[in-house]
């Protein structure tokens, strides 16, 4: 077969695919994952939601996914491939896919894109995220109450607003619970590298931290905490229930399924529109995993009360008076942070030490 017939064949095939679309073909939903689906954390939960989509729609939907796609140029290739493969909607599930998603979306105006945790939108690119910082507030409270060394270790992935928000929220509530508390933040510069995450946890523990909060995707920091004994941590993105009752004393669970089902339904109905969804504990996108018996009953009660007040909208985790790290005023008494500031958060609140790397 020479090149010309090959091209002709490809065009024909595309044409056929185009025709097929018009008929009652299943909607094809693509997913780009940053880690393996078995990471036990972030990607695992996205994949659970993908499975929930299949369960919900049955034959009406076909899902495809690619795992461990590096953030950067390779992501564009993966997305392009998926779009060429006939996907009607593509979920790109990591912050670092933001620009690749926008670039690829320009080339495929008929394909809908959904980018998780980013802030750039287009006519065919919607963004969605969960208000993880609401969950971080509860972790902060527990951390502040539980630490004996007054040192909390925090494993950050990349210095992006999402992660910084979490650190601030956890710190504010840890400080309220325990004015003596200090946070040590370590940047791992990876979302998923169990060995490095374990090393980071180890370094923090060796320097006196007895509570580890992680914003990376694997269960390795919990394993390190367990090995060290007398150190607690939290499940991240997924329940990580295998480390119950300790070191995992609670967790933040991402529940993407309702959102994915809603958006794919919108594609089927032809009502899909670009937009920005940012849901928290109230609507159920963020869930708080069981607080185990390793936490004293009164602390647990307090944590659950905080969860209730956040869920009902009565309390906002970023409520003034709050100052920025340099001491300048940020929020006045009773004032709450607006979503714009939160979405682009690039500063620590007062009391946190260290600098955010650029």
């Amino acid at each position: 077969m020479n090149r010309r017939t090959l091209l002709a064949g490809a065009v024909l095939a595309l044409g056929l695919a185009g025709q097929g679309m018009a008929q009652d073909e299943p909607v094809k939903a693509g997913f780009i994952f940053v880690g393996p689906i078995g990471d036990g954390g972030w990607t695992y939960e996205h994949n659970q939601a993908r499975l929930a989509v299949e369960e919900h729609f049955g034959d009406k939907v076909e899902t495809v996914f690619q795992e461990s796609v590096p953030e950067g140029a390779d992501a564009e290739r993966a997305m392009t491939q998926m779009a060429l493969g006939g996907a009607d909607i593509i979920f790109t599930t990591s912050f670092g896919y933001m620009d690749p998603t926008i670039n690829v979306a320009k080339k495929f105006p008929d394909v809908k894109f959904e980018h998780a945790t980013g802030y750039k939108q287009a006519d065919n690119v919607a963004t969605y995220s969960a208000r993880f910082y609401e969950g971080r507030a509860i972790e902060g409270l527990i951390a502040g109450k539980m630490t004996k060394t007054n040192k909390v270790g925090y494993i950050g992935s990349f210095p992006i607003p999402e992660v910084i928000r979490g650190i601030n929220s956890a710190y504010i509530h840890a400080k309220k619970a325990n004015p003596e508390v200090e946070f040590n933040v370590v940047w791992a510069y990876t979302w998923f590298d169990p060995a490095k995450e374990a090393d980071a946890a180890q370094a923090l523990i060796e320097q006196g931290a007895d509570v580890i909060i992680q914003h990376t995707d694997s269960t390795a920091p919990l394993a390190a905490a367990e090995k060290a004994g007398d150190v607690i941590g939290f499940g991240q993105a997924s329940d990580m229930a295998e480390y119950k009752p300790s070191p995992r004393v609670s967790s933040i669970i991402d529940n993407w399924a309702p959102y994915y089902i809603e958006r794919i339904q919108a594609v089927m109905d032809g009502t899909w529109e670009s937009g920005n969804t940012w849901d928290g504990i109230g609507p159920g996108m963020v869930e708080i995993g069981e607080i185990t018996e390793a936490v004293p009953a009164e602390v647990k009660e307090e944590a659950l009360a905080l969860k209730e007040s956040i869920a009902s909208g009565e309390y906002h985790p970023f409520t003034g008076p709050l100052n920025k790290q340099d001491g300048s005023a940020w929020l006045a008494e009773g004032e709450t942070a607006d979503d714009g500031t939160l979405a682009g958060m690039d500063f620590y609140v007062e009391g946190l030490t260290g600098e955010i790397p650029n």
Partner: protein
Amino acid sequence: MDLSAINPILLIASLMVSATPILLAAIGEMVTEKAGVLNLGVEGMMITGAVVGFAVGVNSGSPLLGFVGAALASALLSLSFGLLTQYLLSNQVATGLGLTLVGLGLSALIGKPYEGIKSPTLGDIHLPLLSDIPVIGPILFQHDIMVYLSIALVAAVWAVLKYTRIGLVLRAVGENHDAAHALGYKVIRIRLLAIMFGGACAGLGGAYLSLVRVPQWTEGMTAGAGWIALAIVVFASWKPWRVLVGAYLFGGVTVLQLNLQAAGLKVPVEYLSMSPYLITILVLVIISARGFHGAPASLGRSFHASS
């Protein structure tokens, strides 16, 4: 900033632990390359070792058996690479890359039932008296057996390559396989053995990750350690003790930068993380400027008795 928060003794001790997987993989790959075979499948063999080691360790309750299983499984996997490249004369680079892909996929498949399970851990050996010596006690004498084994392995490889007939033959095969063949040495058989040795070592390295360092099974958990091992072999210009230095340097920089961060020191993390690779490039430039780069002359070339 509080540098005093870093305990240098704990730092060095955790550096040794963190470097052990790449040290094991790198010393194995060095032997393979010394025999003239470039096996780029280290990552795939490591992750296979990680999952098999974990599975055997969990099922038998003995981490040591896990290590044995890991070594056997990865040696078996590397044998497939050996058969393809040595008998069927397939391209070593492509086959090695294929081996990595196979290993990653295979391990994900085998590992499915083992996600979220905890492994039996290998206890540290506290040598009486020796481990109580201040400073060097905790650094040198309070590790698990695999740390010692990895260092012993480096010493053994060095001694065998330098002082024994087997080592000489292995090097001859790697330097000039035609000459070795003319002298009557079984080039292919020797290379197969070297490949399997490399596979077994990579498997041990992977199992060290899943059984000791992390310790749990997570898909894709080697996260590029195999590629670092390959870089270390080049960095070391194919010399065993330099492999040890290289592995501790690569492992050390990772641990050091995390510790510096935890201590609140303002360090340019990116530069520190980059530094081992920069040093590798620098070493390559220096050795090629000297005209002698230390690479086995037949590295990566296929051998067939007819040619």
